[in-house]
Each structure stands twice: as C-alpha cells, then as structure tokens.
C-alpha cells in the first residue's frame, strides 16, 4: 500500500524526520508511538502534503505512485486520508456540502460518475449512525461550534464517508472521554478491511485496547527505533520510552 524509504523532512529549517522507513500493506493496522516532539505529527503532515514541511530526502510510494510529487488534493483522490489532530472549523459550509463536494471531486478524478443525492443521503445516515452523530450535526457547518469530542467523531465520520485506501489518524484519541473513544474506535474498526490500511499516530496505549494494531513502531528523533507486535504497547505503557531511547542519545 505505502512504502516510505529514508524519509527526511524539516520545518523552519529544523530537521524533524531523519531517515524514516516504513512499509504498510493492505489489511494492516500500524500504530506509531513515541514521546512528544519525536516527529509523529510531522510524518502525518508530510504524507498528506502540508507545504509548511520540506522533504529533503527519501521516497514515498503509494499504490505504485510517487506520493511526494502529488499535491494534497491529488493525494486524497488517490485514496489517502488524514484524521487531523486539530480539525478546522469552516463556518458557513455545511458538513453535507463539504462531503458531497469532496466525494464528487474524488470520483471525478477516478473517472467515476457523481454520487446521486439519494446515495449520498443514505450513506450519510448509515455512517452517522456508526459514530453516533445526529442529523442536526450533519446539517451544521463543518466543525463549527463542535466540542473537541464532536470534532474527532466528525473526522471519523468523514473517514467513513470518503472510504479511502489509507487512513492516517493523527492523535484522534487525544482529549476523548472513554465513551467517545469507544465510538471513535468502533468507527475505525468499521472502516478497516483487507483492502485498506490504517496508521494510528498516538500517545496513549489506551486506544490500542480498542483498535488492535498488527504492528507498533516507536518513533524517536525522526526515526523508527523499535518495531514490534501489539505487546510492545503494553511494555511501553509499563516502562515508558526510556529503556528504548537510552541507547539512542
């Protein structure tokens, strides 16, 4: 699905990613953990094409295409999705308008006909139910006046609506109470199948109780310094990062 090789990137002339390697195959869930400032969010932003970050070296192949040559909208149309750590409010644009525009732009790119209003409405109803969003939230402006939890649910709602090939979820679990965490996780589990993949960027092992990853990677100083199975998360929860990072300093 995606192969990241020796990825180096900087922001404001500060090198954040320093040769990152990662391969994610269809059907897999990967979790990327690591202490603050290790480069987790940078990775998410670089992959989705945020212009504030400059890629200095490396290659990212996504479904056979050189991802780094594509602009952000084309990356999305190729099937990449970022669940934002801080979803943005867009007053005056309803969730429905926003998503219908997005779906049709993605379809147009892939030479598919526009979604019919009925199809769109049915899908909205179905997916909203999964994340427990009521219809009033859907007709409201994108994220406007939403609580933190509602914004995160809305990211997952968008994920389900757009149904991408690869979802990168940047701290989607941060700031959620346990009920909201369950709902968000349920949405991700609903999305996941053998043809797509998920990269979870998280601080907290707690999320991994609900979304079980196939692999866990520890990111530190812009590199993956340890990878393992789901048990690694428990070890990290227990011992922290020091035992891994000690040798790296």
């Amino acid at each position, binding site marked *: 699905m995606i192969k990241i090789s020796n990825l180096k990137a900087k922001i404001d002339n500060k090198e954040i990613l320093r040769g990152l390697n990662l391969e994610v195959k269809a059907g897999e869930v990967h979790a990327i953990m690591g202490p603050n400032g290790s480069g987790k969010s940078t990775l998410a932003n670089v992959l989705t094409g945020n212009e504030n970050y400059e890629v200095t070296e490396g290659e990212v192949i996504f479904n056979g295409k050189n991802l780094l040559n594509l602009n*952000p*909208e084309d990356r999305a149309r190729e099937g990449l999705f970022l669940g934002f750590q801080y979803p*943005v409010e*867009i007053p*005056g*644009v309803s969730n429905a308008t926003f*998503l219908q525009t997005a779906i049709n*732009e993605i379809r147009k790119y892939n030479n598919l006909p526009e979604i019919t209003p009925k199809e769109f409405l049915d899908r909205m109803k179905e997916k909203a139910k999964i994340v427990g969003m009521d219809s009033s939230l859907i007709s409201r402006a994108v994220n406007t006046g939403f609580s933190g939890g509602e914004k995160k649910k809305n990211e997952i709602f968008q994920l389900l609506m757009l149904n991408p090939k690869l979802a990168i979820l940047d701290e989607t679990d941060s700031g959620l109470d346990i009920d909201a965490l369950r709902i968000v996780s349920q949405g991700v589990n609903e999305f996941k199948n053998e043809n797509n993949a998920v990269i979870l960027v998280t601080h907290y092992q707690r999320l991994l109780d609900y979304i079980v990853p196939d692999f866990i990677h520890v990111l530190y100083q812009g590199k993956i310094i340890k990878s393992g199975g789901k048990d690694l998360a428990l070890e990290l929860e227990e011992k922290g990062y020091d035992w891994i990072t000690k040798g790296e300093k």
Partner: protein
Amino acid sequence: MSVEVQKNNPIDHYVSSAENAIRNSESNYLSELQKQATLQLQKSQFPTLKDEDWKYTNLKKLLSYQFVHTSNLEKVILPKSDIDNLKFGSFDSYLLVFVNGIFEKHLSDYSELSNKVFINTISDSFVSDNEIAKKYFSHIGANNTAFDLLNLSNFVGGLFVHIPKNVVIDKPIQILNITGNAGDISFSSSRNLIVAGENSQSTFVQKHIGIEGKTYFNNISTEIVIEQNGIVNFYNVELDNDDSFHLEKTDVYQNRDSQFHHYNFTFGGKLVRNDISTKLDAENVECTLNGLYIANDNQHIDNSTFINHAKPHSTSNQLYKGILDGKSNGVFSGKILVAKDAQLTNAYQNSNTILLSDEAKVDTRPQLEIYADDVKCTHGATVGQLDESALFYILTRGIPKDKAKSMLITAFAENVVADLKIAELKDEINHLIFKHLNRVEIL
C-alpha cells in the same frame, strides 16, 4: 513635476446645475430649502485627503469630471421586462423603481402597500403640506459637507415613505435604483425619507444597479426616523458599474425601544463611499450596522460609520468585513460617541479584512469617544490572508484549491450574511460574492 491647473472650481459646476434643478421645482417650500443649500454649497469646498474623515479616499478623479445632471439629459426609458431582470426576483416584494435618481411610478409595483403606507414624492408631499415630511426632511442628517449640500440642492426626485403606527409590513419593500445608460457622463442626486411609526415593522431591500455605459456619479441620501418600539431592517446592496462613482449617506434617528438593523453589501463601483450614521436618542435602543464589501482590480470602497449613543441603556453592534483582491483598496472608519448621559451603553465594533492579493490594501480607523463611565465598548480589527491551515484541511479531502478558497471565503462572509431575514437574499448575496471575485461557486 507636473503643474496642476485649476480649470474650474468643481463647486461652480454643481451650483449651476442646482439652479437649473430648483427652477423646475414644483414646491416653493422645497425650492426655498434648495436655494439655501445652493448658497451654502457655493461657500463650501469638497473634502481632500487633508480632511480627517476623507484621508484614505482620493476624490481628485471624481471631481475632474464635468458630470451632467440627469434631468438635463434625455430620459432613459426602460421597458418593464428590464426591471424584472434587474430587481431581486427570488423573493416577493413591493417594488419602488428609480431610474437615474427619479422615481418611476409606472415601473413600480406597490399598489397593495399604498393601502397601509403613505408613499409620495417628496415634492408632492410638500405641495400637499405634509407636516411629518416637513418636520424631518433634511433634519436627520447633518448637512455639513459639500456632498450633502450638492445632494440637497440638486435633487429632483425622491420618496417620502411613512409607515403609520402599528403597521407591520408583510413583505420587504424593494427600492431598485437603476443608474446609467445616459447620453453623457451624468450625475444624479436622490433623496428619500422614511418615517417608521410607533410599533411599526418593516424591511427594506435597496438594490443599486449600474447598467453598462457611460460613467456616472450617484449621490444618494436616505433619512430614516424610527419612532418608539419600531423596527426597521435595511439591506443595501450596491452593484454599480466598474467605471462609476457612488456616494451614499444614510442617517437614522432612533426613538425609545426601537431597532435598526442595517446591512450594507458593496460589490461594484470604481469608487464607493458609504456614510452611515445613527443617533440613539432614547433608552433601550438597538442598532446593528454590518457590512460586507468585495473589491477587485482597482476598486476603492470606503465605509464610514458613526454611532451616536446619546441616552442610557442602548446597544450597538458593528461588524464590517472586506474581501479585497487585485489592486483594490478598502477603508473602514467607525466612530462611536457615548455621551455623558449614556450610561450602561453597550457598543461593539469589529472589522475584519481578508487580502487575497499582495497588492490589495485596507485602512481601518476606529474612533471611540466615551464620556460616560459605566459602559461596555469594544473594538477590534483584523487583517489577514485566507487561513492556511483551514485551506490545507479542505485540500486533504480531495477538494481543489479554487473551490477550497471559495469555501473559506463563504466561511468568512458567513456571519454577515447569516443574519439576513430573507433566505433568498442570502443565496443571491452568496452568488454575488463569487461572481465579483471571479471565483467558482461551491456547488
């Protein structure tokens, strides 16, 4: 260095056109007022950049033209079908049509309204000795500047609308002001007086539309009196042609418990200046002066507001938003005066501007003069570009850049447009926003 030769004093030009206008006046009362105004005009001067209230708006170009008074030109005849295309047609309204500053009864459509509301030309109102018209006409706004005097001395047609006590008007009153297409470069002075009686409720939608053709200069004055507990919504939409000049003055006097909600939308015109003032001269008065202006190319749009809190317990809200592209200029000057007596006043003012190009520019000038000590007054001004992080968010959903920008522009304009009480007008305004920025609409 170039040497300026003052060929003609532009004042003289307008004085002689006033003399002509007064000669044709049917009301002695009015012609007396206009003669006085002409005398004062003769002694006055047009403002320059040295005048504090005009420091950002250069009038040199406007004053270099020898505009001909439209009443001295052959009348522009418009067929009724043109009116249907020019008015806001998406909602039902009573229609009052002006062509080049003159009220055109045969193009208007308000017969049902005239059962409840007194509507007549100002001149005829004076001929029939209407006391209310006499009491308020030219007394609401100050007649200080050369432009005020130009307007009063040169005006030939205008309406007096009196909404009696307790009358609630069921549909908006649409004032359609069509300008242009005259035989020469022309100017028109129009002047309306609206008196909203006690407990009355009304909504006005004024649409200024310039037809393509010769350059024109619109000088418009509206005086509004709102009696106790009356409510007036006034939506003003300016769509002048891009070669033309539009100076508009709106002066309001508010009595106890009254509400005035003014929304000003400017899309067209080469140079537009709006002066909107309201005097809150009793307790528990509420007023809103909001505006949205969109400019492109070399347009210059200047909005100046003045809120005069004269008595206690009143609230004023101001929100002006500008979207400037190309080499356009925007100005927002907002003055709030809180008199010593006006305790417990709430006055809020905000101005936000988005610059879509490096060459666009805005000047904001808030002025707060507060003499009472127990008041809540705030003002704020922001100038910025489209929010980059929001833009990125939209792009990551597969939406292309031009549409993403349109979404953010909609978002920016939203809280001015959202409050309009006519849903169809909101759609029309949103449509105009994109049309005037040459940008794509979202759906």
